[in-house]
C-alpha cells in the first residue's frame, strides 16, 4: 500500500512537470498552428538561468538564494520565449512549416550553445533542505518536492484557466484557437496574443525547468529534449489546443509511467507511454478531449 501511494504521488509529480511543459505547447499549437520544438530549449534555458543565479549568490542563505534563482529562471524563460516569437516566428507569419523548421534549428542550436558554455556534465542544483526530506502519508515516505510540483502545477492550471476565462486577452486567445481568421476579421490584432502565448508558455516551461532541477537535483543540457518528447505525447493524447485535456493526459501519462516502471520492469514505463499514445490515436485520432485544432 505504502509503495502504491509513493508511486502515485511521484507519478502525479512527474505528471505535473509534463503538464507545465505541455500546456504551453498545446496553447501555442492551438492558437498558431506551430509545433514548437524549441519548447524544451525554453525549459533548459530557464533551468540553467536558475542554476547560474544560485551559483553567483554564494554568500546568501539557501532559501532566498533558491527563490531568487527560481524567479530569475522564470524571467529568463519568459523573456527568451517572447524574443523567439518576435524575432524568429513572427517574420514567418502564416508559413507554419518554416516556423516549425526554425524551432527545430533553434532547439539544436540552443542545446549546443548550452553545452559549449557549461559542458555536457550534470551540475548540482542547491535546494532548501526541507525539499529533500520526506513526509509520511499512509505509511509512505514521500519526498517533499513532489508536493511542491503538484501544487505548482495546480496553481498554474487554475491561473491559466482564470486568465483564459476572465480576461480580455484570454478571450482573444480562446477565440483565436477556435477561429483565427474570424478574430482578425473583427479587427483584433491577434499577433500580440501570439507573443503573449509564447511568453506564458516559456514561463510555464521554465517553471518545469526549475522543478525538474529540484526533482533530479541536477541540470544537464539534454534535460529539455528528453522531457519534451513526453510532453509531445501528453499534448497529442490530450488533444492539441485543449488545456483541460492536456492536464488530464499529463496525470495519466505520469501515473502509467511510474506504475509500469515499478510493477513491470524499469524502462518499461517509457515504452508503455508510447503504447498508450498509439492506442489512443488509433481509437480517437483527435485525442481524448476531441478538440483537435
Amino acid at each position, binding site marked *: 500500500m505504502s509503495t502504491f501511494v509513493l508511486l502515485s504521488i511521484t507519478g502525479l509529480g512527474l505528471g505535473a512537470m509534463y503538464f507545465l511543459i505541455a500546456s504551453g505547447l498545446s496553447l501555442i499549437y492551438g492558437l498558431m498552428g506551430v509545433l514548437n520544438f524549441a519548447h524544451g530549449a525554453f525549459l533548459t534555458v530557464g533551468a540553467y538561468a536558475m542554476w547560474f543565479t544560485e551559483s553567483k549568490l554564494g554568500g546568501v542563505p539557501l532559501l532566498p538564494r533558491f527563490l531568487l534563482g527560481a524567479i530569475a529562471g522564470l524571467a529568463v524563460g519568459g523573456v527568451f520565449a517572447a524574443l523567439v516569437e518576435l524575432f524568429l516566428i513572427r517574420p514567418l507569419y502564416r*508559413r507554419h512549416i518554416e516556423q516549425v523548421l526554425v524551432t*527545430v534549428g533553434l532547439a539544436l542550436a540552443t542545446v549546443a550553445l548550452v553545452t559549449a558554455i557549461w559542458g555536457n556534465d550534470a551540475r548540482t542544483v542547491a535546494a532548501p533542505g526541507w525539499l529533500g526530506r520526506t513526509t509520511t502519508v499512509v505509511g509512505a515516505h514521500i519526498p517533499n518536492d513532489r508536493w511542491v510540483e503538484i501544487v505548482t502545477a495546480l496553481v498554474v492550471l487554475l491561473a491559466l484557466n482564470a486568465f483564459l476565462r476572465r480576461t480580455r486577452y484570454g478571450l482573444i486567445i480562446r477565440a483565436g484557437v477556435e477561429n483565427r481568421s474570424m478574430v482578425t476579421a473583427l479587427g483584433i490584432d491577434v499577433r500580440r496574443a501570439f507573443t503573449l502565448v509564447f511568453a506564458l508558455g516559456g514561463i510555464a516551461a521554465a517553471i518545469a525547468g526549475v522543478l525538474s532541477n529540484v526533482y533530479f537535483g541536477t541540470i544537464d543540457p539534454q534535460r529539455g529534449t528528453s522531457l519534451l518528447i513526453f510532453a509531445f505525447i501528453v499534448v497529442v493524447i490530450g488533444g492539441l489546443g485543449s488545456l483541460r485535456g492536456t492536464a488530464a493526459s499529463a496525470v495519466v501519462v505520469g501515473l502509467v509511467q511510474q506504475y509500469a516502471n515499478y510493477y513491470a520492469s524499469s524502462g518499461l514505463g517509457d515504452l508503455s507511454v*508510447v503504447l498508450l*499514445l498509439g492506442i489512443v490515436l*488509433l481509437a480517437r485520432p483527435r485525442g481524448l478531449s476531441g478538440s483537435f485544432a
Partner: protein
Amino acid sequence: MRRFAVKQALVPLAVFGALAFVPKLTVDIPYVFQSSLDTPGTLQLLALCLVFGGLALTYDLIFGFTGLLSFGHALYFAAGVYVECIALTKWHWGFLPSLAFTALVGILLPLVLGAVSLRVGGIAFAMVTLAFAQAGSILVFKNPHKWTGGEEGLGTDYTKLPAALVGIFNTKNLYWVALAYAAAVFAIVQWAVSSSPGHIWQAIRENELRVEVLGLRPYAYKLMSFVLASFLATAGGVVYLLLLGGATTDVTTANFTLTLLVMVVIGGTGTRWGALLGGVLYTWANQRLGDASGSHAVSSLPSVLRTPLEQPLFVLGVLFILVVFFVPGGLARIGRLRRPRTLQRLQEAMQR
C-alpha cells in the same frame, strides 16, 4: 521522351562515375580535407558523407515527394545498424544470412509500423512516428538480453565480414560500397518518383482529397512510399555499420531524425540532387567544424567567439535557421527567391 530519359540517366552516371575514381587521386585540397583524397581518413569522411547523402534522399522520398512529415525515420536506419550488428556479433551468423535477415526486418518493420501510423495524418502522424522511434531508442538503451550494448554501443565481430571490407587499408573498398549505396538510392528514387505510383505520391502531396475523389486509395500509396524509403534507410544503416565498425546509440535518437530534416531542407525539399547534396554537405561540415574547433585559428579567438564555434551543432543550427529565412527552397533552388510550392503544399497537408 526518349531523349529526356537519356539525359536523365547521363548526368548521374557521369557524376557517380567520376566519384568512383576519387580513391585513385593523390590530390590535396587544402581546408576542404585534412589530407590528400586517397588517404583512409579522407575516404572515410567522404564515404560517411555519401551514406548520409543517400539517407537524406530516402527521407526526402517520404517528406518531400509524398508530403508525409515523419519524425521516426531514424528508427529504420538504426534497425539496419543494430539488427545487422547483433546478428553478426551476438548470434554469430555469417555475413550473407545476416544481410538477408536485416533486409527482411527492413521490409516487415516499416510495413507493420507504417500500416498503423498512416491511419492518422498530419501532426498526429508526425507524433506517432516520433513515438515509435522513441520506443526503439528506449529499447536500445535498455539493452535486452545484453544484445544492443546499451549506452556503450556494440562493436562488430570482424571475423564474420568479408576480408575486403575490414581494416584501414581497405577503406577504399568501403568508399566504393558507400558510393554504390548513394548511387543506388539515387537511381531507385529517380525511377520511383517518375513511375506511376510515384506520380500518385506527388499528387497526394499536392492534394490528397483529389486523389481520393479520383477513385484511388491514398493509404496504399503512402504505405508503399513509406516502406520503400524505410527499406532504403535500413540498407544505409548496414553500410554505416560496415563503415564505422560498430553501432552507437546516437543513430536511434529523435535528434538524429531532426538532423535528417535539417539536411533535406538545407539541400532542397522535394528535389533529388538537393537532398543528396544537403546530406553530404551537412556531414562534411559537421566533421570539419569539429576538426576546426581544435585548430589554432579557432583556439586563438576570444572566448565569446570560440565557445560557440567549438560546437558544430550550434553553427549548423544557426545556418539552418538562416537557410529557412533567406533561401526558402534550399540550395537546389538557390537564386529563385519565391517560396517553393512544395512547402506550401506540405503546410496545407499538415492542417488537414
